[in-house]
């Protein structure tokens, strides 16, 4: 893959397709599993059914666990929820469609600042401010997506540059964003005249958004677009050769990922009641990438699990705060060496083994 990305060697583009990785699930074909199941065997869920079962399971835990534990766990739940929304978007973009972004936190930043500024300056209620923020991040994502004409590696470095530029604008446009001091006194989240003042109210609002985003992306990933994304992620040249308009789908993947980050960002100031440019640095972009890697690249539930792990673990390792980033780095390297498909991959393997033993 790496050599194909160097456009300086045009020969690499003409690599014989026999060497291409197989496009598993990329093309619509006969549904093999389930349909031709011999009668009398135990019921096996199809891939789609299995994904929705996992969806139900993950969402049940995500809704019930923080609420039943309450207190600090609920607060952590608030932080996990918006990170999970951003991680889902990033997973679709990076893990599924293979469009690596190194500046994802910047889009959360655009969403967060746009929401607060629309609420505080223009007195908009949250749904309108959130809509505006998502529209703005979508536009910014679309702008960044224009850079896909840069080849492979160059696009990655450009996304990094995009993140740096957005961060510096946020940190230095003092009259609009308050500069490095940030914005304090964020008003409570208000929907239709009802102010969500308690943690539980806010949690419910966030979880509704998370559930919707997860369901939407899951639905999407089972359809035509999802198949095209996976084909892109596995082998872009092969995807193009079977007639998938790769440029259009790359732009869709990038824009969707950025829009999800914007939505996540619009909840963030309400959770912390404060935002500053510090929350949207390059480090935060890396943390989001670690979330989806630890959870399992390409797995939507993995993104949520990864977000939960990377938010909750550091809280219980507070005494080692100075080792936090070191631990993140080691975790990233170890998770790729020991479990290349992340926590989701481990769980899937375990489930398959259980299933085999049962039948």
């Amino acid at each position: 893959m790496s050599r194909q990305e160097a456009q300086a060697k045009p020969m690499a583009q003409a690599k014989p397709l026999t060497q291409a990785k197989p496009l598993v699930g990329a093309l619509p074909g006969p549904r093999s599993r389930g349909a031709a199941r011999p009668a009398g065997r135990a019921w096996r869920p199809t891939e789609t059914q299995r994904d929705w079962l996992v969806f139900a399971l993950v969402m049940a835990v995500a809704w019930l666990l923080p609420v039943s534990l309450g207190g600090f766990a609920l607060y952590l739940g608030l932080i996990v929820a918006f990170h999970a929304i951003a991680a889902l978007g990033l997973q679709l973009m990076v893990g599924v469609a293979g469009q690596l972004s190194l500046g994802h936190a910047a889009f959360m930043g655009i969403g967060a600042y746009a929401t607060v500024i629309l609420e505080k300056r223009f007195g908009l209620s949250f749904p309108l401010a959130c809509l505006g923020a998502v529209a703005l991040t979508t536009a910014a994502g679309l702008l960044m997506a224009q850079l896909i004409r840069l080849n492979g590696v160059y696009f990655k470095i450009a996304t990094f540059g995009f993140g740096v530029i957005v961060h510096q604008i946020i940190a230095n446009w003092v009259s609009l964003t308050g500069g490095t001091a940030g914005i304090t006194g964020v008003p409570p989240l208000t929907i239709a005249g009802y102010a969500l003042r308690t943690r539980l109210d806010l949690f419910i609002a966030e979880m509704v958004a998370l559930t919707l985003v997860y369901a939407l992306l899951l639905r999407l990933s089972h359809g035509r677009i999802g198949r095209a994304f996976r084909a892109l992620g596995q082998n872009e040249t092969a995807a193009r050769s079977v007639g998938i308009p790769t440029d259009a789908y790359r732009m869709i993947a990038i824009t969707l990922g950025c829009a999800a980050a914007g939505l996540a960002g619009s909840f963030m100031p309400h959770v912390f009641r404060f935002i500053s440019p510090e929350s949207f640095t390059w480090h935060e972009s890396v943390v989001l990438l670690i979330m989806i890697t630890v959870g399992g690249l390409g797995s939507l539930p993995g993104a949520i699990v990864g977000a939960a792990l990377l938010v909750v673990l550091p809280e219980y390792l507070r005494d080692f705060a100075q080792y936090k980033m070191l631990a993140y780095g080691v975790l990233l390297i170890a998770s790729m060496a020991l479990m290349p498909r992340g926590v989701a991959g481990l769980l899937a393997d375990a489930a398959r083994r259980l299933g085999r033993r049962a039948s």
Partner: protein
Amino acid sequence: MSFVIQLMSGLAIGSIYGLVAVGFSMIYRAMGLVNFAQGDMMMVGAFLGYTVLATFAGAPFWLAIVGAMLGAAVLGLVIERLAFRPSVKRKADQVYLVLLTLGIGIVLSNGARLIWGANPVVYPTPLTHEIVVVAGYPLPAVYLYIAVVTPLLLAALHLFFTRTWLGLALRAAADDPETAATFGIRAGLTSSASFAIATAIGALAGVLYAPIAFVSFDMGAIGVKAFAAAALGTLGSIPGAVIGGFIIGLGETFGGQLIATEYQDSIAFAIMIAVLILRPTGLMGARS
């Protein structure tokens, strides 16, 4: 007056970016790997130089350069052997490799923080505060080192890549690994050599940069501008990396002066994105 000083500081910082970018480009060429840890390798080099100067009181500056380069080369070999070669060998995905280099960068910078502390340090050498007057312009003395060492190193690299067996082997393997392998050039050898040389050059950049700035565990962040330099000068091209370094160095110095110094990093990346939009594979890339 101030224009010349600005020009000199732009050229000096441009040389530093260029040196880091050369290492970045070499690794990309040899392994097709985008090594986001290159800036942190530079940081480790700067700290190794600090250790040399702090341990041997009164040691000359060149000893810090040599010590840092050797130490970093060994570190580069270890990292290549333990982390990258296995992943490259099993043809891991690019996303995966980029994340791996990010992880190594995080471990390096935070490991350095544990070893050398969170507070920035200053090189214990007179060079740090020394000013020389060249043609009536007061300039930091280390600029002379940069002005001498950078061309020397580039000349040495040129000789290495055109006159020595190893240099030719590296180029051959970069162009066509399979054919090179039939001539007895092992992939392991080329990636080890490229990594060691690239980290040593990164360390050199770190030591040369240290007297102008502080040495701290997060100084690898300036290495990211070296990526911009390497990218705009076409990844894999060594002259391109150097030219890219100068463009970014001069561009951010003068651009910062014209617009606002707070936006220096943005200016560097804006230049890179603008160049890449015009030439999608960089200045040295083949015209498509």
